[in-house]
């Protein structure tokens, strides 16, 4: 299984695991990022520090450290 941070711009995936604690997990949930949600990587910032992903109808910005905690099944 890959981590979200391994994906490149334009790649799609399905969330398998989220390794996060209480509040962060809740925040990811409320933004629509949870087990089973489909996502697409849209853009990376310079030096690969942050990435933009699309989940459902929402665009999210994530830091790579957070993206590493999200397990993905590539589609």
């Amino acid at each position, binding site marked *: 299984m890959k981590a979200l941070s391994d994906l490149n711009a334009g790649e799609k995936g399905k969330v398998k695991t989220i390794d996060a604690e209480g509040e962060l997990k*809740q*925040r990811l949930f*409320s933004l*629509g990022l949870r087990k089973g949600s489909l996502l697409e990587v849209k853009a990376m910032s310079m030096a690969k520090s942050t990435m933009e992903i699309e989940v459902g109808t929402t665009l999210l910005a994530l830091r790579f*450290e957070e993206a590493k905690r999200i397990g993905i099944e590539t589609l």
Partner: protein
Amino acid sequence: MSELIIALVGQPNVGKSMLINSIADARLKVGNFSGVTVEKAEVSFTAQGHAIKIVDLPGTYSLNDYTQDERVTKEFLQHEHYDLIINVVDATNLERNLYLTTQLLELGKKMIVALNMMDEAHKEGQCIDHEQLSSILGVPCVKVSAATKKGIGKLLNRAIDVSLFPLEKSKLIYSDVVEEEIGNLASFLDRKHYPSPLSSREIALRLLQEDPSTYRKMHEEPIWVELSSYLKEALEHLYVHYETKDVAEIFAEERAAFAKGAVVETLSCKKCTSQTVTQKIDTVLIHPVYGIPIFFFLMWGLFQVTFTLGSIPMDWIDAFFVALGNYAKTIFGEGELGSIIADGAISGVGAVVMFLPNIVILFLGIALLETTGYMARVAFLLDGFFHRFGLHGKSFIPLVTGFGCSVPAYMSARTLKNDKDRLITLFIIGFMSCGAKLPVYVLFAGAFFGQEHAGNALFVIYLAGAFIGLLAAKFLKLFVFKGADEPFVMEMPKYRLPSLKLIWHTVVSKAIMYLQKAGTFILAASLLIWFASNYPKYPDVAASFDQKIEQASDEALKVEYENEKSKVLLEKSFLGKIGKSTDWLFAPLGFDWKMTVALESGLAAKEVVVSTLGVLYALGSDVDEGNESLIAELQKQIPLASAVSFMIFVMFYLPCLAASIVFTKESGGYKYLAYLFVFTTIIAWILAFIGYRITLALS
């Protein structure tokens, strides 16, 4: 009939502020508005004979108090009195918005869902069956568009209707697994005839959600002995089914599933072209290579426009106040009364009002950044860079707001979750020069760098301030506020054309606030400065000079004596004494006592720096050239190196009184204000000293 209190709740970027603006504008009675809603704002008006108060709460993705401003919303909803919730929902992003709606339904209050941005949803080809959605949620859903003002009247009518009828319990239904456990617990409570104002279902639900207060209450009841074993069993079932022992996660999944189900049943997409425009713009604006240069170019443009465009009406205003001062002297004479009006009130207030055009342009630029959705992109672009300095990408928003005014900036730092990140951000917000410091820079840049370079000088000043701020943040992160980093997870809202009305509103209210401050606080401060610089009187000294002037043989000598007289008298005044007793602190920076006093009075408000200079240099100016502008006066009396070090000191020292109070409140104690004072003063002094020495060496 008592007032109907409506709480306006919704996720961020769903147009709550715009909606409240549309509602209130129609009634022409508006409360306080701030750029970003971080405090609750209130609007009162009457409709159909009902007194109505709408409370606009900060946007929140869920009721989990992740950040401080979300806590404000949660606290209000749980503990304050209100009659009705209007849940504002972005119709173009229904599923995620309904997640919050499900949490609101659990509060068991009267509620209406306002499906906002329907016009946009239509354009994107989305059809929402709002009647179907009403029956699924068990609360009325009204289609509105704050932008085109459609459905606003209907929304108010429904709100009044709902408030008049008794509460109907919502129909939030969970999955079969959860419902079964709720049913088991509820039927046990029913069998025991457990008396409670809450229904058995509600108690059961709260127990399953591990609500602490419900637990505390039930724990004291005799029924607890039996109940606890039922509860344990119910939770075990859920744990097994959901493969997790985190109840919060189980219910989050439940809510998400409910929201998804509701969307599937109510939303039909005709062409679904959503996001394409936003994504096209994003390919340019957050481009890995061009993104950051584009951002710097936009900021540079903003400061250029602030200076060049702003300087045109500035000259008119300046000329107007000079003429007004001279006119006042012809009416009230050259005596005390004429002096207090012309040299005190008019030159002090005029020096501040002069900068209104610059302030308006700067706030307009910041309002545009905020409302278009570009701010979030910049946070995305800069997070990697900021992170290296111990800051968070989201710190960018309070920092940019700080270019306008530190007060809302301190408040908007609440969107940062981690306390240490928040404190670091709070400490360096003052380094982002606020709008009130702008007059000082415009004045000095105009006087010492000439009109053609002043815009660039401004840009460099702001950039340098920001850069030193970053270094200071790194220092704080390394040595003071050590700790784990806050995760960076944020929504990138859709690009939207800003509502002209909302921007107009923001800018006008900022301009009015600025003028009010000039007319009250600055006026009082100017009069105080005038008094302190004119008293005590020294008739003997004045008389001896008058004698010398009378005996002087030629005109040049007369003028010289005249100048010396005002200089000596000024130095002997209260203000002169204050300045002289403290100017040893600033002598290494090349300040004279007038600059020292201006800086000290600037602790009250940064505009006072300019108004104090206005009063002091108007008094000290030559009689022949009394109508010369402040800029020319400064050029004559202040050396370049002192001017540079003065500007640097102003860039970094303690923010104004109002901001300091807000800082104390947001940081959590006077202790931090004391730290801030020491921290900023040391940095300001050292950098001003370096700037002074370098300029001296170069010139």
